[in-house]
């Protein structure tokens, strides 16, 4: 597994240790990209900061909370427009965003008094919300404001409110991952164990590392509820502040994004003896295995099997329609962290695409171990790439599609490579059986969209053909397909609704008899 040096990065020799090509017959002990290190000077990173990782990734998806950034107003930019972690309480946490709006005078004279006023004003403006989280920023950290003391003062004055303080300024750690870590440990230390929950089922879990991007959490919780499992809390998408204070009462922690949330699972295991089960909500086989494992843990395998059988029968023919048309397409799988390994193998097996490169912006070496184990030989694995490296990789690998976030996605567009937003999603949710088909449809539409052909015409010099009609995506995808597949009645394109959450939110769940025995 040789390390890979980009032509554009020969002047930054340290970068060579951050990329490898998965070679035939080689293993993880032959080479592994360096990871979770400070970005090397001279390399323009696509990473976010530790404040962003704490607030905008993990804190803010909590739905019934006033989230305040104690810093300049610009720090709180990411909200309705850029984040899509929706919630079932009319998206309160996305619609309203708060900052103490620090200015130069506060840097000189201190901002604690102003912060206190902000907190009280916010609670008065939204009297139905009694929970708050305050996020330190670089500015308030540097002047040494004691946010914890201010918050405690307000809680003493207003006994019906509770406030969580997260001290994760932007410079705390090499990337947003430092913020994930800080907020995990802070929540565990400051809040878990404060609330005793009402237990309504024999089977109780925390669902951890799930952020409800376009409804992913609601799709997965729907499966759990159909199995009669009580989801005590979700850390943190669509999660409730007080539910998350009761995490210590679950029988099992079910973990999805280990990159952002394994810390709290590990701490819950050490302190409360709650085991951690890593599951996957993406892809038919991994999702089926995950539901079956959960069923086995609680002794309700039949309930899991019923769901898997029903969902597979409904959606597999639609997944296969796309697989026939996506076989051999070259994909760069360039997410932030966990999708690198959640998707690396299953997208190849279930959609037929070839993953020619994986990368991670803020992943650790553990994420690369998982991703490289799962991707096919020949894939280029890159840690914390800079923009020039991603351009070089695209020109060399000639992918049909880049699956990534907004920043590198815009770079891809400039060189006319189709891009799919797999951070905030295009037409998610992508979790669940139906969600996986929605992802296949988005990949299909991205690759075969006629717009990309038009984009290659240089209107300043190329002649625009006027004697040819517009080519549709179907005409392009089916051009070389055998007639037996084109005419097949066994497979079909996606037939779900535009918003597939409506039915889930209206579902009435079965009631299961409780037994007077503990489940484990």
């Amino acid at each position, binding site marked *: 597994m040789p390390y890979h040096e980009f032509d554009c990065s020969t002047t930054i020799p340290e970068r060579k240790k951050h990329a490898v090509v998965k070679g035939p017959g080689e293993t993880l002990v032959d080479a592994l990209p360096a990871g979770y290190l400070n970005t090397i000077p001279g390399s323009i990173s696509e990473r976010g900061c530790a404040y962003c990782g704490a607030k905008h990734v993990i804190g803010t998806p909590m739905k019934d909370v006033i989230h305040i950034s104690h810093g300049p107003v610009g720090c709180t930019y990411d909200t309705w427009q850029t984040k899509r972690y929706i919630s079932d309480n009319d998206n309160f946490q996305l619609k309203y965003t708060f900052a103490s709006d620090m200015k130069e005078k506060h840097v000189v004279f201190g901002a604690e008094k102003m912060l206190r006023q902000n907190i009280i004003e916010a609670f008065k403006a939204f009297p139905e919300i009694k929970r708050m989280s305050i996020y330190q920023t670089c500015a308030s950290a540097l002047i040494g404001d004691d946010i914890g003391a201010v918050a405690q003062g307000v809680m003493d004055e207003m006994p019906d409110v509770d406030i969580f303080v997260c001290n994760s300024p932007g410079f705390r750690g090499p990337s947003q991952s430092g913020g994930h870590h800080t907020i995990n*440990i802070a929540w565990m230390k400051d809040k878990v164990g404060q609330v005793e929950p009402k237990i309504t089922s024999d089977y109780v879990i925390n669902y951890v590392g799930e952020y409800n991007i376009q409804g992913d959490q609601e799709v997965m919780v729907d499966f759990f509820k159909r199995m009669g499992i009580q989801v005590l809390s979700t850390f943190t998408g669509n999660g409730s502040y007080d539910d998350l204070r009761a995490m210590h009462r679950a029988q099992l922690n079910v973990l999805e994004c280990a990159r952002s949330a394994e810390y709290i699972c590990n701490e819950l295991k050490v302190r409360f003896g709650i085991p951690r089960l890593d599951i996957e909500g993406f892809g038919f086989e991994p999702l089926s295995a995950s539901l079956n494992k959960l069923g086995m843990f609680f002794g309700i395998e039949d309930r899991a099997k019923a769901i898997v059988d029903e969902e597979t029968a409904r959606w597999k023919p639609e997944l296969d329609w796309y697989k026939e048309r996506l076989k051999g397409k070259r994909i760069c799988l360039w997410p932030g962290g966990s999708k690198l390994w959640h998707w690396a193998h299953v997208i190849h097996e279930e959609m037929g695409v070839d993953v020619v490169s994986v990368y991670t912006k803020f992943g650790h070496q553990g994420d690369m171990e998982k991703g490289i184990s799962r991707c096919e030989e020949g894939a280029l694995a890159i840690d914390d790439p800079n923009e020039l490296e991603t351009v070089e990789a695209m020109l060399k690998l000639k992918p049909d599609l880049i699956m990534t976030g907004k920043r590198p996605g815009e770079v891809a567009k400039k060189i006319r490579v189709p891009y799919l937003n797999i951070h905030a999603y295009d037409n998610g949710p992508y979790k669940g059986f139906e969600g996986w088909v929605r992802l296949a449809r988005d990949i299909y539409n991205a690759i075969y969209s006629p717009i990309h052909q038009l984009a290659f015409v240089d209107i300043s010099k190329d002649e625009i053909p006027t004697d040819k009609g517009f080519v549709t995506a179907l005409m392009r995808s089916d051009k070389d397909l055998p007639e037996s597949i084109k005419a097949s009645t066994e497979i079909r394109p996606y037939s779900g609704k535009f918003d597939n959450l409506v039915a889930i939110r209206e579902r009435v769940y079965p009631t299961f008899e409780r037994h007077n025995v503990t489940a484990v």
Partner: protein
Amino acid sequence: MDYVKNEKMELLLDYIMKNCLWQFHSRAWDRKTQNEGILNKLSQLLCDEKVELETSLDKCYWVDAMYLVNSYKERFPWLFSMPKSEIKLLIKELHERMDFLTITGSLNLELTDQHY
């Protein structure tokens, strides 16, 4: 280890490395207990031995081991026709290889971090 046995072990190993996540916990001590917990139970299940399910942690290991048993049954039927003594040895070698790839030979510098 002879060539055929090595090839069999590699098939079992490849399946785990590609389809499972439990072997990649973040610290060396966790990986050690994960490998031990799940692969010991796998060996017991394949050899029709009694499997301890006293604690919730035991049960969690058992779930991942059962997943492997079912997957292996589907993909590697030869495993189930081997003598139990040979299965035991094969899983022991698999365990040693897993420990090497994920712990003792791992290039992951975070494994020895003392804190989560």
